[in-house]
């Protein structure tokens, strides 16, 4: 059994390596198209299961558009498997790996980043350096947050899809001067303001407490290294002191929590909250155009900046339709797909392409995009780096121990 599994691992690694090597060598060849053409050929008719968070109406519609387009263009049939939390899928893959189910997996492509990517990379659940072989990868920006996912080297194991930054949305009808720092926020709720954030381990809730931690901790440099190397208690003490004060004054008294960041937007529209959270600087625009928020909303960030990161797609090691998944990943990087994604009519997710590298007509498509007054004004607010991926789980655990009982 063990020998068998070892063989399989060797085999898989060998396949991955040879694949990576062949594409690297062929990239130096003049014959690069042959490989990609072969891939296109074998992808035809493949059924690709794309496991991605399904909680955003516009995102779901966008993925549906991707599915229709790749079907038409490449004959790849894409199914969006909507899930609540990608950690579930990582868990399924771990179970599959444990029982030795190394082929014919249930997932061909998945939307990940941060600690989930770190878990996949550590567990050998990613397939290989496929992202380097994608033709469109040459247009991608060359920034740290694309090369390092929460301080973990990406190594081509995942392909970038979009950028993100923590932003706050408020309704000018009810709130004139939004609080622009952690301390101002505390003052705001003390004065009767209505605020709430989703309870960790919800992704946005965790991001929000990471944001507070960066702002409040006197030792925030420790956050760039793995949590095991830091004095967790000392680094996080100011955070807990702050939350102890904040929680009783929240919407729901620190006992009930909004189900998600999207729920805070709904609650903002219902006027139950003054401020909503989002991880997309353009989300408010998209929401206004979609009739989800009133035209009186505006987006802002804290004066010292907010956390930003990149989200990616990856192919699991046991995916069934790897060729099809690569075709889809490549299409997601195309100017066509990225411009539509950045358009607030459809989604409004910031692009990871370096627009200046694109052909002129594609550049024009990005320049034509106007997010309107509701989105975060371009260039407003600094972007802060994510803490190392290991901090998320430690913070979530500590938060739960303090506030979940």
């Amino acid at each position: 059994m063990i020998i068998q599994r070892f063989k399989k691992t060797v085999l898989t690694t060998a396949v991955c390596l040879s694949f990576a090597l062949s594409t690297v060598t062929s990239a130096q060849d003049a014959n690069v198209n042959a490989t990609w053409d072969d891939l296109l050929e074998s992808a035809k008719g493949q059924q690709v299961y794309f496991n991605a968070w399904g909680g955003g109406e516009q995102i779901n519609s966008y993925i549906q558009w991707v599915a229709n387009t790749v079907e038409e263009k490449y004959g790849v049939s894409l199914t969006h498997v909507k899930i609540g939390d990608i950690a579930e899928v990582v868990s399924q893959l771990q179970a599959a790996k444990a029982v030795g189910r190394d082929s014919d997996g249930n997932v061909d492509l998945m939307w990940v980043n941060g600690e989930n990517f770190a878990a996949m990379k550590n567990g050998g659940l990613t397939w290989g350096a496929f992202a380097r072989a994608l033709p469109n990868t040459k247009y991608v920006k060359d920034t740290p947050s694309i090369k390092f996912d929460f301080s973990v080297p990406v190594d081509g194991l995942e392909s970038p899809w979009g950028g993100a930054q923590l932003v706050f949305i408020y309704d000018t009808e009810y709130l004139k001067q939004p609080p622009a720092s952690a301390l101002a926020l505390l003052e705001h709720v003390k004065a009767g303001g209505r605020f709430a954030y989703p309870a960790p381990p919800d992704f946005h809730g965790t991001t929000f407490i990471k944001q507070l931690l960066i702002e409040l901790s006197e030792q925030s440099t420790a956050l760039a290294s793995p949590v095991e190397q830091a004095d967790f208690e000392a680094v996080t003490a100011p955070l807990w002191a702050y939350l102890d004060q904040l929680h009783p004054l929240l919407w729901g008294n620190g006992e009930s929590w909004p189900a998600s960041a999207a729920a805070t937007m709904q609650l903002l529209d219902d006027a139950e909250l003054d401020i909503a959270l989002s991880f997309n600087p353009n989300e408010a625009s998209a929401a206004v155009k979609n009739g989800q928020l009133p035209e009186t909303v505006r987006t802002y960030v804290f004066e010292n900046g907010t956390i930003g990161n990149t989200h990616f797609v990856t192919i699991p090691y046991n995916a069934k339709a790897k060729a099809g998944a690569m075709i889809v990943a490549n299409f997601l990087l195309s100017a066509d797909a990225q411009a539509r994604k950045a358009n607030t009519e459809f989604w409004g997710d910031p692009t990871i392409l370096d627009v200046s590298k694109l052909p002129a007509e594609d550049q024009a498509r990005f320049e034509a995009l106007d997010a309107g007054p509701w989105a975060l004004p371009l260039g407003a607010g600094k972007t802060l780096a994510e803490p190392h991926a290991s901090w998320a789980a430690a913070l979530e655990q500590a938060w739960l121990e303090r506030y979940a009982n």
Partner: protein
Amino acid sequence: MPAFGLLPELASGNGFNQLFNEPRFWPALILSIKTGVIATLLVLLITLFTLICVYGTRLWQWLFAWIPSLLAVPHAAMAVGLAFMLAPSGWLARWVSPGISGWERPPADWVVPDAHGWSLIFGLVVKEAPFLLLTAAAQLQSINVDASLRIGRTLGYAPARCWSRLILPQLYPRIRLMLMVILAFNFSVVDMAIILGPGNPPTFSVLLMSLINDPSSRAAASAGALFMAFGLVLLFVVLWLLERLIAGIASGRRESGQRWVGHILWRRFYSAFIAAFFALSSISIVLLVIWSVAQRWRFPAVFPTQYTSRFWLGKVDQLTSPAVLTLSFALFTVVSVLVAAIAWLESERRGIVPKLDWLWYVPLLIPQVTLLFGLQAASLLFFIDGKWLTVAYIHWFYAMPYAVLILAVAWREIDPNWHSAAAVLGAGYWTILFRVRIPMLIRPIAQAAAVALAVSVAQYLPTLLLGAGRYQTLAIDLVTSFGGVDKRAIAVLAVLQSLLPLLAFVLALLVPRLVFRSRLAH
């Protein structure tokens, strides 16, 4: 098995240790016991009070025309409707704002879902009370209620006394098993608890769901699933002790022979309450329909300020595939359940299998989480997870008990002389089955089919756990999107999910009539 660390391939470590180290363990367990027990007691009380106060009135007939439609609406859809109704910015608050209440903004005095589980309890009672009421009503004939009421009255007891002294002691043993099913359900429900239950800590079953989805906590989840089954057994024991206690008190009071005058005012008050209660749940469904076509609808407007059809028409692509998938499982379930239930009852009638009614209660008495965690592990080991047939099977598994229990009564009551008469006329077994027995029982068969369909359409957890996330039925889509997608899109899903079983119930009423008419025409 993973709970004890026996299947390290699926889950590592000792689950019980991990479980007890989980900070949310005790609060979640206590919350589940609280919501489960209170909801079940309220269901029982409402059922009994409705029998006492409403039985035999015009409201009674009205309720019974209405209840099947309430039962048809899936739990998740009803939960969404109630959430939209009861929130501070919900429909109830809007009707009185800002005029009567003075609320320019939604009040900040409560939130839905609340941290103490009352929203969830409310939702459970709304769904389960009609169910128990229907079960109890079906038993009334066999215990001769009208005669008991007459005798009681001539002895000088008020109607309420007749019920509590004469009828309830006979009725209770007949609905006890169904009450236990309801307790098991309330204690372990997942979909409704995700929508209406507290989030932090969540109910025990929802906590287990998040544990099983966390790679490092699978063993803890398995241990929790066993713990859940064990807890339920304890609750059953408590229920039984409570029964003994009440029976003891009641028999003492029965012998005292005291006679008091019943309060007619109290009956009126309760009738109004119960009418409002049932109306509220029906109105929530209407509310969903309105939300599904709203473009802008801010507090405190009572109706949307702008309407749109794009959440229906613009999403045809996204709605068709879950709807078709849901329908495919539902149709499979209806056909397979009917065939299996009829085969079972026929075998029972001909003495091939013994009469085993209790057997069909077993799946309903085990918490879904417990059973499904086990089945999921098994399906992973046998490589049958994520297969269409695996999911279809589990739908069949959960629909079958209801179909058998509905059909059994009618099947056994049919006069054997019909069979003999047909046999004398030279009809073979199959001819008799298809030309006599089934047409005679078309009404209960149609009901069983409708219930099987409703059960299948509502299956959230079984589809999720055994489908490996591949089968995006309406139930899955609805519960997954509740946390995020905006209200209009959720409302569309909830309406669509309710529509299928509602149509089935309407058909179940119409088809037998049509069949009879066509047979009369021959």
